[in-house]
Every structure is written in structure tokens, then in C-alpha cells.
């Protein structure tokens, strides 16, 4: 639930003390806090990945080809996000909308991969309640997926409500897109860490 507000007291041209926009500083502080959230989830996963008493172990179920494709999808979505911001800042609203939509679609595709992978694991007998590997794996990747879903909803809102006014999202309001971009890239680099720790390293024999 991304809680951010878009208004602050309008006290004339008072520049902020650090010269930074309130909302950008809020987003970065929030991302620093999220580092600890995903850090704790990754710590739980590392403690439990080989501690299962019964049921499938990482080496048996983790599927590198599928997740490397989904990693490629998420990396590309970061590219489209950045291009969307660049377009909006140039005032090119049309390609801005295209790239925002592209990012949302890529994000949704990534989620599709996740759902497919979860179904695959459940069919192979790894449910969240099967063993501690399953529990910590599903919690970590589940919360990451939830963050991607929030990002997709945010992107689609930006896309849909850009049609509310005729000039779409003006360059002066590019910060709205930049904030979404910061959140999106953060969720991407969390996936980079997850891909490295959960998939590449944990599935080694």
C-alpha cells in the first residue's frame, strides 16, 4: 500500500533546504526502509533453504531457464521505464505513454512467470506449508511479486489518468513518473539479488 501524498503547504517559492523535492526524499527514505524488509526476508530464506526435514529441496525444483527469462523481462521493463521518464521529461507524451504501457505489460509478464512457477512448484509437491524452504521461498518471492503488482497498478494508473487532461503528463509533472520509476527500479534490483541468492546460488549442487 504505497502511502504518499502529493500536496504540501503551498508557502510560495520557498525552496527546500536540501534543494530536493519532498516526495523524492520520501521515496528514497521509504526504499531504504524496504532494504531492511527484503533483507530480513532474504535472511530468513538463507537460514532455512537447506533446513527442511522433508519435501523438495532447492536443487530439485528451482528452474534456472524460466527465471533467467523472467529476469530478462524485468531488466527490459527497467529500460522501458527509464525511456518513459526520458520521453515525459522531453514533453513527448505519446512515446511516454507507449513506454509506460510497455513497462506495465512487461511487469505483468513477469508476474505471469511467477504464477506459472508457483503452480509448477505446487504440482511438484512444494507448497508453502510443505517445509521451511517452501515457506521462506514463497514468502520472499510472494512479497516481491506483490511489490511488482503494486508497481503495475501504479503504472496503469499513470497511463489511464494521463488521458484525463489533454496534454497528458506535462514535463513539469515528470516527478510523478520519476517516483514510480525509482520504486520500479528498486523492485528490479531486489529481484537481481533474489535471482542471484535464491536461484543461482541455492540451486548449486
Amino acid at each position, binding site marked *: 500500500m504505497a502511502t504518499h501524498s502529493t500536496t504540501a503547504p503551498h508557502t510560495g517559492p520557498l525552496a527546500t533546504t536540501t*534543494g530536493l*523535492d519532498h516526495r523524492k526524499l520520501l521515496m528514497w527514505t521509504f526504499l531504504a526502509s524496504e532494504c531492511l524488509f527484503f533483507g530480513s526476508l532474504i535472511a530468513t530464506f*538463507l537460514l532455512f533453504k537447506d533446513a527442511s526435514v522433508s519435501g523438495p529441496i532447492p536443487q530439485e525444483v528451482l528452474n*534456472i531457464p524460466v527465471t533467467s527469462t523472467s529476469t530478462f523481462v524485468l531488466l527490459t521493463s527497467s*529500460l522501458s521505464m527509464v525511456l518513459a521518464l526520458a520521453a515525459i521529461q522531453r514533453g513527448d507524451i505519446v512515446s511516454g505513454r507507449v513506454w509506460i504501457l510497455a513497462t506495465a505489460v512487461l511487469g505483468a509478464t513477469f508476474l505471469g512467470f511467477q504464477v506459472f512457477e508457483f503452480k509448477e512448484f505446487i504440482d511438484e509437491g512444494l507448497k508453502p506449508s510443505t517445509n521451511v524452504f517452501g515457506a521462506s521461498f514463497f514468502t520472499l518471492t510472494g512479497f516481491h511479486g506483490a511489490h511488482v503488482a503494486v508497481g503495475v497498478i501504479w503504472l496503469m494508473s499513470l497511463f489511464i489518468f494521463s488521458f484525463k487532461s489533454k496534454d497528458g503528463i506535462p514535463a513539469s509533472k515528470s516527478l510523478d513518473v520519476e517516483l514510480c520509476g525509482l520504486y520500479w527500479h528498486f523492485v528490479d534490483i531486489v529481484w537481481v539479488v533474489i535471482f542471484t541468492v535464491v536461484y543461482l546460488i541455492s540451486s548449486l549442487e
Partner: protein
Amino acid sequence: MANSGQAPEEHHDSDHPSPARYIQIAVILTLITAFEVAIYYVESISKEAFIIIFVGMGIIKFIIVAMFYMHLKFDHRLFTWLLLAGLTLAIFAIVTLGTLFRIFT
């Protein structure tokens, strides 16, 4: 939606990476990932070597995305300090818990 917390228009047109630069970065990231997946199937590499390579590659990808896509290279250093503070505490917690639970030995 007025926002008086709006900083005076940041003058970052000059040092703003161009779209071509972004595509270059995306290619680099994709190559790194492809490289990781490729060597994953090489049998002769030991587990420790794998871990060093993958962690190294992960850190490089992390830094590239943070520096360029998240614009840290061009923005106020306060943002970098915030991210570093969160990362240091997270890594400290993971390493300490890992040692206490003896997962590294």
C-alpha cells in the same frame, strides 16, 4: 496538483543520460545475466567459485541499475547515503544471523 515542496527546476538536462545510453546499459545488464546463466551449466567450476562469481555479478548489476537507472550518479548524495545506510544494516543483519545460525560454515 501544486506542490510547494517542488525544488527549483533541477538543471539536469545536461548530465542526463540519453536514451541511446540507456539502451547501452540495458544491453550490458542483459549480457551479464546471460553470462551468469551460461557459466551456470559449466561443470568444472567449484561451488565457492560460483558463489564469488554470482555475488560479484549481482553487485555489478545492482550498482549499474542504482547509478544510472535510479539516477544516483547525478542526484544529491543524500539519496546515496540513504540507500547505503539501508543496505549496510540489511547486510549486517543477514551476515550476523547467518553466522549465528552457522549457515556459512
